């Protein structure tokens, strides 16, 4: 069946901001979808609120709407654009839910829009628990005994019938939000209540827990002609009980025999047929390790994180093929993009093993519960390929950037055998390392470990293969024989050096001397059966023949940014992709190295060559040795790439762009201070101390409040603002280990306006595409602040100073390419906080709103082109007539023990953008896009710290005048009475019956404004209030600045329409300016 004839214009819904459970994989899928539609000559309208993505670039779709993903906005856009079809199965759960809402509210019918791909009935058959259960029963596919409840009594009745353990899953949520395994009534009640709150439809599924069974997944595709194929099978290292997003996963399945494999494969086909899905779908099974019994756990009727993984694992472009199916093609009509000869209608066969490893945010959320269960906690993931499991798992671990380079966590060295053994039963982020530790110490046999963990013994034995080699290495000294064994089992040079007490150089030299070198193999979907054209490679020490054809062309390696984590998100992938595109435009062969399966950069047709490898010095140098590139670009891959600059330069690799020494001058505090002094540019006063006494004296001299942080970590980790000596003492004893090697930095905390600048320099000229002003005052991490372009309150003198300082610092640092600077403006004076000689989180946002291809220009500048030559001149580019607001998005619902109050440590996982000719509406769009439902009336709870009471009065008054009812704790209420405002007094948290939490639960409070008293100890009540707002979806603002802006939006929008949409192309092209 060829392409549907009636289609000319198609609207695609993206997945919105990155949150835990819905990350960069949808940028990959969405971009692929849009390109694939355009390839068919269709006009594409894209809606997505996330500016940090490739898919929201103006060249990916004909019309790009960066607007909130709500029914209101979508309706307005549909009305305006009048598309023929809607494609929603590539925008994750967010896109799917929105499509269902649009269909049910009659919008699609009204505007005659055809839902492409899987139908609404089919979506519901897969997603609605009751309908799913009926369907599975009809076709005889087993599902665990279960019931759907809408209240707690149903849950208890069911538990009384079938007993514990049970698993609680809310219907229609992302990444299993709010679910969990319960083993008694108390836990059942708690989890069920939470699940009911999170479910979009107020339903929770309670079912028999089959924790401990093998968890197996299939990626399946079906076309309109009912042809079905499986793309990839996957086996979870962690048995059922851990969310698949939090599991280590291998592909293909390893421990299933052909009979079991086909049993589940046949079931998959039967299921996708019964559900009548058209496109890609993910099916999860639990398989009894001791029999042929299995249960169907879940079906995702759409492209998912697993399908992104399956695409990267096999080379089969699931998103692309799903799109072609959605517009009417059948699988046998679609060409296999990898072989270009065979058809997309086949099942990939791989001749390597793939390991996916989750990246958790526990390094940032140090107080979070690290237990893994049915609620996903990982922010990102890495993938690795090798010809052995051992090689692949070690590559994955190296790719994580969590300070380990093998299955060894140094902190476990101090643990007693007893402790190691006892902890084996704990299911958390450290389990794999603990298993290795137990095997290394030989204190538990693989059988014992398998019995405790329920992890298949096959995996445990493989881990033992690694630790056995480690033990031998440690015993012998470094020689060619054991070096070869170490490399065959996948250990890095660094690990070998560590284990044999030699230097990295010794190991590398010996390796080269004995020609112990990796070969590179191709990912081709067909296990070499057919000739392929994919330039997609991985390394292995298990091979004789290298398949890479090294060209004679000029070539440059772009280092990617690794797994998505808090502080280093999809923005850096955006930059890497644009750098690759710039190189290709210049006719230079662009090679990318990255290990993140979710991203656009690891799509094999983005670069000339893709090496799916860990981003470590060794792994990169191996590729450099092979490809002999002209050089490497490090400035677009975030801190991951920057951190490799020095060691690569030391090995003689040319680093394009800002030099390693200048990078160091920006990053090393002392050298940076020296430079600022020379340039006569002020920064907040600060000192570096190596003991408590110096800290106290120093802080007194600087004057409280001070910002304190350890010098050896970046990204705001363990950074706090302390207001007095007592708090400083507490911080020094609790948060950091201060030693002469690891000083603590004490800086004056300037309570001013924070301003952020991204600039491009060629060493002569410095172009500033735009300046962003933060809504929240300094002290809130820049990544968690609302940023506004262009600045709304800064006087021109300040802007002039910022422009001047930026230029002088860029030139002093001899920046070639991008740099990012954060300033604080206090009392009209500008201070520098931080300079990053690389691309930043705000580059995609700024590129989009200013219509300057910042990465492209920076890449050219890094290679020696002049800005003037490209038509750019020094200074600030004239601001645009519209306003763009970037707002942070948090995943607090997934992390139960995390405090949501904002501070110097970054907590957001993603971002959205609001753009409009009116600042207030841009802000409204940003806040709405971030998922915050600002009430237009109702009741606001004020509970603020003493230091904020004065400021709060004015704010409360303003809300009061807007007609809101105010509720406050006693102290705050008194303060309000003093200015003549009546606020209802609520009891504190411990005063049971009428307490705040209770009122929030009853839905009597519609918004909360809460600031935290300084010091960490007194904050318990506040913590509970804030968590309650997360659990119940009540907006809660922890910075008065944000609350002020919300108030302004409410005031301004009273007599204007809230929903007004324009495409990005309209703004940047000047377009229709009638707002």
């Amino acid at each position: 069946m060829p392409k549907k004839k009636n289609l000319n214009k198609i609207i695609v819904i993206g997945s919105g901001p990155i949150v835990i459970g819905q990350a960069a994989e949808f940028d990959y899928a969405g971009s692929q979808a849009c390109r694939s539609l355009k390839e068919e000559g269709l006009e594409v309208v894209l809606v997505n609120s996330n500016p940090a993505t490739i898919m929201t670039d103006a060249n990916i779709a004909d019309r790009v709407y960066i607007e909130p993903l709500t029914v209101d906005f979508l309706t307005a856009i549909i009305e305006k654009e009048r598309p023929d079809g809607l494609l929603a199965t590539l925008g994750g759960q967010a896109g799917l839910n929105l499509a269902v809402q649009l269909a049910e509210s009659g919008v699609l019918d009204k505007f005659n829009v055809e839902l492409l791909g899987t139908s609404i009935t089919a979506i519901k058959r897969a997603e609605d628990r009751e309908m799913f259960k009926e369907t599975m029963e009809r076709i005889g596919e087993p599902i665990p005994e279960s019931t759907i409840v809408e209240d707690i009594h149903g849950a208890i009745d069911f538990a009384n019938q079938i007993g514990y353990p049970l698993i609680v899953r809310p219907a229609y949520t992302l990444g299993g939000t709010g679910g969990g395994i319960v083993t008694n009534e108390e836990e059942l009640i708690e989890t069920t209540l939470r699940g009911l709150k999170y479910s979009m439809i107020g339903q929770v599924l309670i079912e028999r827990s089959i924790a401990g069974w093998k968890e197996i997944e299939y990626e399946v595709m079906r076309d309109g002609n009912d042809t079905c194929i499986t793309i990839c099978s996957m086996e979870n290292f962690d048995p059922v009980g851990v969310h698949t997003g939090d599991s280590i996963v291998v592909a293909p399945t390893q421990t299933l025999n052909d009979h079991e494999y086909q049993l589940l494969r046949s079931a998959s086909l039967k299921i996708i047929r019964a559900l009548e899905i058209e496109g890609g779908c993910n099916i999860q099974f639990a398989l009894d390790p001791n029999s042929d019994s299995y249960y169907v756990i879940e079906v995702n009727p759409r492209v998912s994180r697993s399908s992104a993984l399956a695409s990267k694992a096999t080379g089969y472009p699931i998103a692309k093929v799903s799109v072609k199916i959605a517009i009417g093609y059948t699988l046998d009509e679609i060409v296999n993009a990898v072989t270009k000869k065979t058809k997309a209608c086949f099942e990939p066969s791989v001749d390597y093993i793939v390991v996916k490893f989750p990246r958790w945010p526990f390094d940032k959320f140090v107080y979070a519960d690290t237990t893994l269960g049915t609620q996903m906690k990982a922010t990102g993931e890495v993938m690795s390929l090798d010809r052995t499991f051992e090689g692949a798992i070690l590559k994955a671990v190296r790719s994580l950037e969590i300070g380990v380079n093998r299955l060894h966590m140094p902190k476990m060295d101090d643990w007693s055998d007893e402790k190691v053994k006892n902890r084996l039963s704990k299911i958390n982020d450290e389990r794999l390392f603990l298993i290795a530790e137990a095997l290394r110490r030989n204190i538990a046999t693989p059988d014992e470990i398998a019995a405790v963990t329920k992890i298949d013994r096959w995996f445990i034995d493989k881990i033992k293969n690694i630790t056995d080699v480690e033990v031998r290495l440690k015993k012998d000294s470094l020689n060619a024989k054991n070096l070869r064994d170490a490399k065959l089992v996948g250990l890095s040079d660094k690990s070998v050096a560590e284990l044999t007490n030699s230097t990295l150089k010794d190991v590398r030299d010996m390796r080269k001397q004995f020609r112990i070198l990796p070969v590179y193999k191709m990912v081709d979907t067909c296990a070499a059966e057919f000739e392929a054209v994919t330039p997609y490679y991985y390394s292995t020490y298990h091979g004789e023949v290298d398949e890479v054809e090294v060209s004679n062309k000029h070539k440059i390696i772009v280092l990617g940014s690794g797994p998505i984590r808090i502080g280093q998100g999809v923005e850096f992938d955006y930059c890497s992709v644009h750098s690759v595109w710039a190189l290709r435009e210049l006719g230079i062969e662009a090679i990318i190295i990255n290990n993140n399966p979710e991203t656009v950069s690891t799509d094999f047709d983005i670069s000339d060559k893709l090496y799916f490898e860990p981003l470590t010095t060794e792994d990169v140098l191996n590729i450099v040795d092979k490809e002999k590139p002209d050089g490497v670009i490090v400035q677009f891959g975030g801190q991951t790439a920057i951190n490799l600059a020095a060691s690569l330069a030391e090995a003689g690799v040319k680093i394009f762009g800002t030099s390693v020494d200048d990078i160091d001058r920006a990053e090393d505090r002392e050298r940076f201070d020296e430079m600022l002094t020379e340039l006569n540019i002020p920064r907040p006063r600060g000192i570096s101390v190596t003991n408590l006494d110096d800290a106290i004296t120093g802080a007194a001299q600087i004057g409280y409040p001070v910002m304190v942080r350890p010098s050896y970590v970046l990204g705001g980790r363990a950074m706090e603002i302390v207001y007095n000596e007592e708090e400083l003492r507490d911080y020094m004893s609790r948060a950091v280990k201060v030693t002469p090697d690891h000083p603590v930095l004490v800086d004056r905390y300037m309570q001013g306006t924070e301003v952020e600048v991204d600039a491009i320099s060629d060493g002569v000229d410095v172009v500033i595409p735009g300046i962003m002003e933060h809504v929240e005052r300094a002290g809130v991490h820049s990544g968690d602040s609302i940023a506004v372009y262009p600045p709304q309150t800064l006087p021109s003198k300040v802007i002039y100073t910022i422009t001047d300082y930026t230029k002088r610092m860029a030139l002093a640092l001899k920046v070639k390419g991008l740099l990012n600077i954060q300033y604080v403006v206090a009392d009209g004076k500008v201070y520098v906080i931080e300079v990053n000689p690389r691309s930043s989180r705000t580059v995609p946002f700024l590129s989009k709103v200013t219509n300057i291809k910042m990465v492209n220009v920076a890449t050219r500048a890094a290679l020696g082109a002049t800005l003037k030559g490209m038509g750019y001149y020094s200074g600030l580019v004239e601001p645009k007539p519209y306003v763009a607001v970037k707002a942070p998005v948090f995943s607090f619902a997934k992390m139960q023990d995390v405090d949501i109050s904002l501070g110097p440590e970054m907590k957001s996982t993603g971002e959205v953008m609001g753009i409009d000719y009116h600042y207030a509406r841009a802000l409204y769009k940003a806040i709405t896009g971030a998922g915050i439902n600002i009430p237009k009336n109702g009741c606001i709870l004020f509970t603020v710290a003493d230091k904020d009471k004065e400021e709060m009065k004015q704010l409360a008054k303003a809300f009061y005048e807007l007609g809101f009812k105010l509720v406050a704790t006693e102290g705050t209420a008194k303060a309000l009475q003093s200015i003549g405002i009546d606020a209802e007094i609520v009891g504190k948290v411990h005063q049971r019956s009428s307490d705040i939490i209770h009122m929030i639960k009853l839905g009597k409070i519609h918004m909360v404004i809460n600031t935290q008293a300084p010091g960490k100890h007194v904050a318990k009540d506040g913590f509970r209030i804030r968590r309650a707002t997360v659990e119940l979806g009540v907006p809660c603002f922890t910075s008065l600045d944000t609350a002020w802006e919300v108030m302004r939006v409410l005031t301004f929008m009273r007599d204007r329409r809230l929903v007004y949409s324009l495409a990005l192309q309209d703004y940047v092209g000047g377009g229709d300016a009638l707002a």
Partner: protein
Amino acid sequence: MKGKLILEDGTTFRGQLFGGSNATTEGEVVFNTGMTGYQEILTDPSYCRQIVTLTYPLIGNYGTAKQFNQSRKSFVGGLIVGEVCEKPSSSSMQKTLSEFLTAEKIPCLYDVDTRALTRKIRSVGTMKGVIVSEYTSQGTIDEMMALPIRKNVVEMVTTPVSYTIDAGKDPLYVVTMDFGIKRNILDALRKLNCRVTVVPAKTTAEEILALNPDGIFLSNGPGDPKDVPGVIREVQKLLDKKPIFGICLGHQILALAMGANTYKLKFGHRGSNQPVKCLETGKVAITSQNHGYAVEESSLKGLPVKITHISLNDGTVEGVRHVSLPVTSVQYHPEAAPGPNDSVHLFDEFIDHMKQAKA
């Protein structure tokens, strides 16, 4: 011990020889891209005397178990793999792969860059090869390489005597010509309540018809179909007598019997992921395949035979049907084991033919 595979064009692949220096072998080197089902492959008589390369590098992960054997013994000439798993894990396992290889006396070269080998075969075509120890003399290698490819492979694998598998009440009666039948075919027929008599390949048409079957099944098997001209002649005699269903070699023999031609493919189709399009329904099924020869499409012109199935990968003939007689055959393996069960319905058609003929 160190060993190597030498191909007839001189290319050498190094590895470790399993089972010591006596475990040398020679034969045609082929590759299979299935990721599971090594035991089924090793016991499929169609691989008789061939050296099988498995492209998936980790082999032996779930051990072996008797119930997965596809014939009375393994007939393969040798096995080439990346890694032989020494510590498999599966509740159904009875023997490790190493134990199985030893018991079945299958020479095996492991630690081989099987991907490089596959690429070689893919580009040059199927070649003869020898697996020898690192220390085998050149003279011995030359002698082994000079040995011709065996032509009497069907004879080696077919059942020496006929036997019958009983079924339930009111069964259909199928006589199966055994050219190297896989056990799962018999299981599939039995599941459909067929009483099956398996007869040796050399059985005559008269002998078969004397059994008065409801239908005749022509099995899979090894080698070039043209190496069994006697069988082709007998099948020719059966064409208008009974419903016939053929699989793999049986399909090729049937096609030759109907007057078509067969030819050798460059490197064959061997794997569990082969897409086949049914021209009658337009639907595509993923199939299990193992064949080095194919029916020549052009040779079907003018014959009362129509093509029912083609390979989506290379367009070659994967199934035919006689235009007027209840005679059908497929090149691939609807019985699976290893591979997908998507085409098991083909047996139903055979059953229908037999029922119609009987009625």
